[in-house]
């Protein structure tokens, strides 16, 4: 087939309209979410005192942080799905959850505490946290990568890493409603390690799957 023939063929296919990447990502996440929710409700479930916990600002802060991470990563993912885009001008969005967390740590420092700092940091659920967040992330990560395949990222590993943050953010939101460790120090340590792990998996998978 010579190039003129190919061009004519492509022009014949001009009527085909692909859906925007955002739409594909949304569908894929909606399809993947039930798997993670099932994992959550069969293995973990909400913490028993969730009604009282809701009045604790540090409990609520966990959701602010994880949801900020998820939404910033969704925005950056969609931006990076365009081939001419780079992280510049968008990457700072990912600092929002870090900023919230830092403010939370500062806030907690200024309040009188019953437990010493190290005890709060180590908490009582660190192992569950580091297992549950990555495991619940995996179905969401798979969905996110399938959705993002619809795009054309210039740097597939970077795009995959951001997809990893996205799925870790969503999985951590679920996990936060189970976990009784509310100290921002605990979140900053264990949630971050879990997120870094999923980000690395995302980068590795993305470098293969998101090439176009």
């Amino acid at each position, binding site marked *: *087939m*010579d*190039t*003129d*023939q*190919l*061009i*004519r*063929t*492509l*022009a*014949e*296919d*001009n*009527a*085909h*309209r*692909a*859906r*925007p*990447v955002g739409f594909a990502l949304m569908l894929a996440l909606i399809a993947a979410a039930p798997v993670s929710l099932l994992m959550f409700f069969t293995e973990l479930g909400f913490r028993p005192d969730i009604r009282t916990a809701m009045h604790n600002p540090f409990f609520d802060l966990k959701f602010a942080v994880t949801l900020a991470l998820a939404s910033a990563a969704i925005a950056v993912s969609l931006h990076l*799905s*365009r*081939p*001419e885009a780079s992280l510049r001008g968008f990457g700072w969005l990912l600092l929002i959850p870090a900023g919230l967390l830092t403010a939370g740590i500062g806030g907690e420092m200024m309040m009188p505490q019953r437990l010493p700092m190290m005890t709060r940091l180590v908490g009582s659920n660190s192992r569950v946290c580091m297992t549950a967040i990555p495991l619940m992330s995996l179905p969401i990560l798979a969905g996110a990568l399938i959705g993002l395949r619809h*795009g*054309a990222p*210039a740097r597939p590993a970077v795009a995959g890493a951001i997809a990893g943050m996205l799925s870790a953010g969503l999985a951590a939101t679920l996990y936060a409603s189970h976990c009784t460790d509310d100290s921002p120090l605990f979140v900053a340590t264990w949630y971050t390690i879990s997120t870094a792990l999923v980000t690395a998996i995302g980068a590795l998978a993305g470098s293969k799957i998101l*090439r*176009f």
Partner: protein
Amino acid sequence: MREREDEWTGLMRSAISGDSAAYHRLLKAVTPVLRAAARRGLARAGQPVDQSEDIVQDILLAVHLKRHTWDVSAPFAPWLFAVARNKLIDALRRRGRRIFVNIDDFAEVLPGEAAAETVSAGEVAAQLQSLPARQRDVLQSIAVDSASIKDTAVKLSMSEGAVRVALHRGLTSLTAKLREQ
């Protein structure tokens, strides 16, 4: 240069809103620029430049299948060059050489420099044979025999809608096969 790129943007906007003739003109207009850049990339990597047509076709397929990621309010050339650069790096890497491709390679092509001749390309034609029968027949009819969608539908006793679907699927699987090889 500026004018040329504004013209591309205008053509692509018309193409997106359904004007296939404008799309055809756009692809014709960008091909010599892509070809010149592919040759330069191959030459710099110490590869034979007669493989440039495979790269050009690879880029054109990517442009076609990813054009929904172009923002219609943005100029078209930076998007096009980003896609082309990505495909060129990929092609050179597949040929066993890691090389830095400068984005200016695309932007700085002078009109006279772009050879208009079409060299035969082997990869797309070879992959065509490995497609499922339906897709191959439709692509063969439209690309090689220059039949319209309507004529193809009559010839293969399919509905026009089915021909359109097979055409698009064929182009998608062709691209996937090129990427895997």
